[in-house]
């Protein structure tokens, strides 16, 4: 069941000769965890902005094609561009890269309440929804803290909880860990993984950190100059190291190990039927190495 369908999407920023996205077609299934990656300027953020409505609601430019939001109305799908940004909040939760610029309230619980207040939720229900959103992000203990006293990783989890309180079916996150330290990054990604597994929320995330996300996601999409260069489950995508090299995206170390073992003649070619699956984590790489010894 699709949740977002992108059809022939082309977008150009004003005063830019080449389009930032060119003829992109992509179907995102409900409940999928999908990672959009690519070199800087490949169009990751632009694609996400088209999905969460920042394009065309905030960002001017030339937009062709459509991003369909499925089952948004009883009658079926609607183009994201036709739903106003505040209306869209009920379907798609948006988290941005800057932890500071997206927190509006002095106190954490007020931050979570902000979206509920905006969408006219009955105040009697708010306490429960705030508590649930905080618990789902593992930050119940921060409820009464001042937002200015939080670390970057805590702020990003507050930002996720704040959009989660509106019960969206889809979360769109634009490099949410780019300003975080390794601990903060790990905490944020763990929350996303659990939201996806336990609540079936569709996760669409733009990230450079492929190594960390590969074991968590269902599908990797590699962009090159506004076009989809490669997509599929991580183990499939990692079969093509030359594409990663060409795009300047680092292939995760466990996958590089598998390719090195093939080159050394220790493993059969990875696309042959008797080849082992490409390891995604250090643990999988260790198991594979031990089997060979």
């Amino acid at each position, binding site marked *: 069941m699709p949740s977002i369908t992108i059809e022939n999407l082309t977008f150009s920023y004003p005063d830019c000769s080449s389009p930032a996205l060119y003829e992109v077609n992509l179907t995102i299934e409900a409940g999928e965890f999908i990672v959009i990656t690519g070199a800087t300027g490949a169009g990751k953020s632009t694609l996400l902005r088209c999905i969460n409505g*920042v394009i065309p609601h*905030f960002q001017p430019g030339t937009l062709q094609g459509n991003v369909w939001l499925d089952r948004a109305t009883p009658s079926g799908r609607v183009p994201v561009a036709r739903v106003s940004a*505040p209306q869209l909040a009920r379907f798609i939760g948006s988290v941005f890269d800057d932890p500071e610029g*997206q*927190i509006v309230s*002095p106190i954490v619980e007020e931050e979570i309440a902000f979206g509920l207040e905006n969408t006219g939720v009955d*105040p009697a229900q708010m306490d429960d929804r705030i508590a649930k959103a905080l618990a789902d992000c593992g930050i119940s203990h921060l409820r009464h803290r001042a937002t*200015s006293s939080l670390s970057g990783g805590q702020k990003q989890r507050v930002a996720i909880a704040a959009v989660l309180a509106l019960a969206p079916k889809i979360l769109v996150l634009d490099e949410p860990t780019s300003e975080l330290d390794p601990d903060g990054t790990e905490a944020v990604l763990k929350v996303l993984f659990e939201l996806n597994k336990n609540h079936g929320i569709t996760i669409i995330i733009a990230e450079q950190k492929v190594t960390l996300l590969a074991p968590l996601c269902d599908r990797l999409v590699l962009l090159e100059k506004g076009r989809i260069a490669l997509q599929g489950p991580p183990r499939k995508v990692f079969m093509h190291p030359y594409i990663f090299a060409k795009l300047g995206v680092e292939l995760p170390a466990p996958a590089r190990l598998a390719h090195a073992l093939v080159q050394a003649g220790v493993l059969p070619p990875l696309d042959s039927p008797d080849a082992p699956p490409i390891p995604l984590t250090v643990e999988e790489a260790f198991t594979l190495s031990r089997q060979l010894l």
Partner: protein
Amino acid sequence: MSVSIEYIPTGSPVHRLHALTKLIFALAVLTISMLLSQPLPLLLLFFSLLGIAALASVSQEILSAVKGLLKVAFFLALLQVFFYPEGTVLFAPIPSLPGLSVTDQGIIFGISMALRMMVIVTSFLLFLTTTPARSTVLSLVEYLKVPYDYAFLFITALRFIPTFLEEVRLIGQAQEARAHDFSGGGPLARLKTIFPLALPLVMISLQRAERMAMAMETRGFGLPGRTYYRTEKPGAVDIMVIVALLSAVAAAVLLRF
């Protein structure tokens, strides 16, 4: 002089009063102090404010602010004493300038003026230290029909003060690391050295404002039918306090005219 005008959460009975009650309190004290012209009633009013500060457990902050105010009050009184023309002349420091002579009424007027200033500032300090800004703003929206957008502007501005200070510190350090000297000589030179700090700060803030607008609208800001998470209703105690305050103002008016 460092005056704390921050909310100090102590959970006292004064803190538990509704923001509107405390706002009316500050305004009532202001009105009454304007109606009183003798130093003694003003002094009594001032001491009762200190009593309320003790009840609210914010005495320490209020007293340190009062200490700073004393200097201002002294100069204010001195100014009035010298320039108040009416009443019996007690002495004239410069005989050729009769306008500067000190009169008995001038002394009383000067002292009253200084006390009045102390009373008004103290009453608003009491209001600010015992009431969270958010409660004040929300009660303005709810009871005085201030549009929410303006109230929101104020709450968000409060939220950004720490962020702003942190950025000032970071930019300052970054510029100093590039050998920029912030401690330039005269006032004009000082002003000039501020530019490398102010310019990046303004740029960052503008960029952040744009992002924040995006973050707000993608969370439903601007939809009709907004609700409020915590609305505080004035209780029976609040009504009683407000009635008492209004009667006190009425009594002061009757006594004066």
